[in-house]
């Protein structure tokens, strides 16, 4: 499966993400000759343990996430980041979790936007919005390089593309920049051959980063 970097928008300190930035980013992709293809959507769900009163919360994971990806319409992914666990399962795993009633799906985030073709690259630009709200919580971008499926072998070309992209975007003087976090896939038991499980881990890492950023911004305001 082709290698993919998932990038997220890091707003400058004291600024927040807004839809104008999203518009500028999309225009920038088209400006470097990205051809708009169609829509895409991924979802991420936070699961919380259902505990009896005397339970010790610390015993149960607080970072248990469920992820659905558009390129795998029949699959569902679980990530427990703190324990470096990722699971690929059928969609019915969601029904099983509902029946078990030990964990409940709480907040869900949608990642949605447009997909672009740019030579051997496939780009996706998307807004991050809560499931039942319109407020923009973030901007996410996927950069997929179709010819290579080895994470190690793809590094140079992905870095080069990232540099070109950052340079193109910098001309628009936006209050922030895209960041790429590189998780340690090996710690999750994955090889360097790219799979959707790698993508699920990148999404989980980005959401953790977004939460951390929002929490630190909150504490600064307080």
């Amino acid at each position: 499966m082709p290698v993919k970097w998932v990038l997220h928008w890091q707003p400058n300190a004291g600024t927040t993400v807004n839809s104008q930035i999203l518009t500028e980013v999309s225009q920038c992709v088209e400006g470097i000759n990205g051809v708009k293809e169609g829509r895409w959507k991924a979802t991420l769900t936070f699961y919380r343990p259902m505990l009896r009163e005397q339970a010790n919360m610390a015993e149960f994971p607080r970072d248990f996430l469920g992820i659905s990806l558009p390129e795998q319409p029949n699959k569902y992914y679980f990530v427990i980041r703190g324990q470096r666990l990722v699971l690929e399962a059928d969609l019915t795993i969601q029904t099983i979790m509902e029946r078990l009633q030990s964990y409940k799906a709480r907040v869900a985030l949608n990642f949605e936007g447009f997909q672009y073709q740019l030579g051997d690259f496939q780009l996706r630009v998307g807004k991050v919005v809560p499931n039942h709200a319109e407020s923009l919580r973030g901007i996410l971008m996927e950069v997929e390089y179709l010819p290579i499926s080895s994470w190690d072998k793809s590094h140079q070309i992905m870095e080069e593309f990232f540099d070109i992209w950052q340079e193109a975007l910098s001309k628009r003087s936006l209050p922030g920049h895209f960041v790429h976090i590189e998780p340690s896939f090996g710690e999750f038991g994955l090889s360097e051959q790219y799979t959707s499980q790698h993508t699920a881990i990148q999404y989980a890492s980005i959401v953790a980063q977004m939460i951390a950023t929002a929490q630190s911004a909150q504490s600064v305001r307080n």
Partner: protein
Amino acid sequence: MGCFSNVKEWKSFRLVKSRAELKSTFSAKIQIHVEALEILLQGLCGVHRERLRIHEMCLKSGPNLGLVASEVRLLCDLEQPEPAWTVKHVGGAMRGAGAEQISVLVRTMVESKASKNVLRVFYALGYKLDHELLRVGFAFHFQRGAQITITVSSVNKMLKLHATDEAVPVTPGIQLVEVTAPASSENYTEVVAAMSSFCEYLAPLLHLSKPGVSTGVVPTAAAAAASLMSDGGGTTL
């Protein structure tokens, strides 16, 4: 046709306590019946049998997790080139007067394939291993009014945690025969009828019943089995 290779061996068994002799004879009978059953099923189902070697782990929620306790089964198919995992949740059985009229158990079941660290994930979520089993035998999957699966297997327990190479039968000489078919709330009466109809063909060898209800041994089973074995299944029962 018995389980002993030569007369000398049989004689040495006779010197052992009668209980042991009886046990071995009983095992032989079951072994003959299993082979006969396989021949019968081969003829009935029209498909090849599949070998079955499934490591089944039953996990229960730890204390304090969930407002009610929950149970989930992880099945690892050891017959595949790479162990293939399935998560299975079995729900409550259909109850009431209608359920009692039906000759089969109807219950909800949801399955999902899963990647190989599914056990670690459930442990991380707070589930504990309650017990584990190894089922060894064979299965037939076929279409006969419904998508029916019949499995014939011995249920084995592991003497050490996850040691599937060192499993021993829970009830030596006794095999479990299960017939299952998926159904929806719209079609389950047709599926029940298809299963019952199929099970009638097995009547010469065994009677199947709802789980938990004992039916005993078919009196003519030995003769039927011998007949099946002697001409390789050409006999019409």
